């Protein structure tokens, strides 16, 4: 199975955020908010780190 790095990033972040939201929050509303924040954090962090690494390709 080959997918782009971005697709892998989105799928991985969504699944891991789902597990952490179910583990760390008890109410459904809290889980949804925490999961979305975590997902956004994963994606933003990866984009920022990728951008910072761009000048150093190897």
């Amino acid at each position, binding site marked *: *199975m*080959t*997918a782009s790095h971005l697709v*892998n990033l989105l*799928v*991985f972040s969504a*699944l*891991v955020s*789902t*597990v952490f939201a*179910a*583990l760390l929050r*008890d109410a459904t509303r809290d889980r949804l908010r925490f999961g979305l924040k975590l997902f956004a954090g994963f994606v933003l962090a990866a984009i920022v780190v990728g951008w910072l690494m761009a000048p150093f390709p190897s």
Partner: protein
Amino acid sequence: MPGFAAQERGTLRRSLAEAKPGAVFPACLLAWLLPGAGHLYLGRTVKGLVFLGAIGALFVLGVASDARLEVHLGLDDLMASIVSLSQVATGLPYLVARLLGFEAGRPTSLSFDYGVTYTATAGLLNVLVILDAHDTARGLKP
């Protein structure tokens, strides 16, 4: 906030009242064998199904991405040992994938590294899920 603390205390008191000390071992064992099964056993159906779906999907995607599942133990390559132990923590899905002949993976595949990351993360998350099942059975979590 005193109101919040009182609410937390109330939740903890209710959890302790629902504690099932005899269910700690079976819940942890089931949680290791199949992600989410410990929570299903304890009656936390939604949580159990979420864990089963998300961790199961991570593991299946990892195997589909040509991850290697062979056991590697030793200090010669510590990172490989940690990854290998993490994969084993997935439980039955790991054993089934090996029995089906996926243990060698395909290191030349473009998605090999993604696959290893997916499968190792699935196992590490399952360790957290086992600990959560333990706390739930002891009444330390709702």
